[in-house]
């Protein structure tokens, strides 16, 4: 006979799914707990804009609440928003996606990524991706029962993944290539030429490409190439994008997926049973974001660019080698001059100089020896952080 009440049940690791157990805890989380115990910290550790969402977008969302838009929407997202997105992709990239069955509104790109992986992977299927990369990439593949296959990228190669590096890793089980450029954490971008070579590979081996382009609007002095625009790629690309970075709308959690209707249909199947729909308030805000002209986005991009130049020069001036990031809002300097591991460096820097950065190793073993420094931070804070880091490097330079 079992005793009454559940407090006597002994939970152990065996109650947790093996797949979840096998996923390592996030390196960022650990750091976050440490950080909250210290006062006066300048943080370059964030992964989001420091702008508040433009007011016209907030105001439109408030108005929609007042008007009583508080219900579920269609599983796929509001038809008006999908139609607007379809027009947006057409005018921006010349891509045509049917708003009825080729576009799905998701809860951020995070959900889109999860849906994409679950929609395409059979147990054991392999997905090739760069390393270092965004923290969710390997996990999203593993959680869907697949196996992440990581391709090392290096500072010497500007952290670009190349077709030549991908090809030898293609096996019978390879299902897709997962790209996230402009890249979090490195700030790397892929040129049209490099993308074209990867696209040729995908076509030759009949692979899908999942392309997370959420930082696509944030590029500096280069053009962002949308993968689906390359010849023959629209059919085999799952384009993921969202509103978080370009419109400073991280907390609204609105993203979208655009692809062939077979794939969007499969993703929608999962989405309707797990998420039902993205929140209507966020969708209303996204609709306003698309309808307005882009002058505020452009102003934000110019502002990031100024800070990008300041932080890259500053990091080089204090003796760190730092490749020039052309996208997103991260610099990814090397700390090899100190001989420390990324984690050691980040922890010591936090204690000694009260500057928070994210250890590059949180993004994969090829991030070891690097730091992710976010420059979506007020300029005076960037300058102060650089001063403090300069002192730190002076003390800890390898003798």
């Amino acid at each position: 006979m079992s005793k009454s009440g559940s407090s006597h049940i002994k939970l152990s690791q065996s109650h947790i799914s093996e797949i979840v157990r096998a996923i390592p805890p996030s390196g960022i989380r650990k750091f976050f707990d440490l950080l909250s115990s210290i006062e006066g910290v300048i943080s370059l550790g964030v992964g989001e804009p420091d702008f508040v969402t433009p007011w016209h977008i907030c105001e439109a969302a408030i108005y929609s609440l007042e008007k009583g838009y508080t219900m579920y929407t269609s599983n796929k997202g509001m038809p008006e928003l999908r139609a607007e997105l379809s027009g947006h992709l057409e005018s921006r990239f010349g891509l045509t996606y049917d708003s009825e069955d080729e576009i799905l509104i998701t809860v951020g790109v995070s959900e889109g990524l999860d849906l994409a992986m679950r929609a395409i992977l059979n147990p054991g299927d392999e997905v090739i991706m760069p390393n270092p990369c965004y923290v969710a990439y390997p996990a999203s593949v593993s959680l869907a029962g697949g196996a992440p296959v990581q391709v090392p990228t290096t500072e010497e190669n500007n952290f670009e993944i190349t077709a030549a590096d991908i090809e030898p890793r293609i096996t019978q089980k390879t299902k897709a290539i997962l790209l996230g450029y402009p890249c979090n954490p490195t700030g790397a971008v892929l040129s049209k030429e490099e993308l074209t070579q990867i696209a040729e590979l995908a076509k030759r081996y009949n692979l899908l490409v999942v392309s997370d382009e959420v930082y696509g609007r944030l590029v500096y002095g280069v053009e962002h190439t949308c993968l689906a625009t390359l010849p023959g790629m629209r059919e085999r690309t799952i384009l993921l994008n969202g509103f978080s970075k370009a419109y400073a709308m991280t907390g609204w959690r609105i993203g979208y997926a655009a692809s062939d209707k077979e794939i969007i249909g499969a993703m929608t199947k999962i989405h309707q049973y797990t998420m039902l729909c993205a929140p209507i308030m966020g969708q209303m805000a996204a609709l306003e974001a698309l309808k307005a002209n882009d002058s505020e986005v452009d102003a934000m991009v110019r502002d990031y660019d100024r800070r990008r130049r300041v932080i890259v020069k500053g990091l080089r001036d204090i003796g760190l080698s730092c490749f020039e990031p052309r996208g997103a809002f991260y610099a990814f300097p090397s700390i090899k001059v100190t001989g420390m591991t990324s984690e050691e460096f980040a922890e010591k820097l936090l204690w000694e100089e009260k500057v928070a950065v994210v250890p590059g190793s949180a993004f994969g073993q090829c991030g070891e020896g690097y730091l992710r420094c976010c420059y979506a931070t007020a300029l005076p804070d960037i300058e102060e952080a650089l001063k403090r880091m300069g002192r730190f490097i002076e003390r800890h330079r390898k003798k």
Partner: protein
Amino acid sequence: MKKILEALEKDARLTPEQISTMTGTSVADVKKTIKKAEADRAILKYKTVIDWSKLGEEQVWALVEVKVVPQRNVGFDSIAERIYRFHEARSVYLASGTYDLAVLVAGKTMQEIAVFVSEKLAPLEAVQGTVTHFILKKYKEDGEILEGGEGVKRLPVTP
């Protein structure tokens, strides 16, 4: 040029070295551009936006609508000049609509402004009439929100 002045407009205290870094232009070119912009009066002046009420300083502002009779050949320009030369008139704009000139007037007291309007502005020959609106509260000045600037509420570390 635009890049340099945009940076300077955000923060007039930036040094040419800082602007050079921010824009990827050489220090010499930054200096040259700024000099030229100053000479062309593209840069009018460098100012500081101060919330004087924080210092307990009394300052009264009024928006004065002025209806005038335009004059042959010079239109509104000559009467505008008669008005903008008064130091009390801090900004002067020609506006469409029910009145012609919008004049922002600053003074230490309401009395001071009242005297300026009634004794200097209203009696001008071309002025047909004035309507004075005293400013009760300033919410936003030169693009800066005066109160309730709450800063960014971000978590310190996010992926």
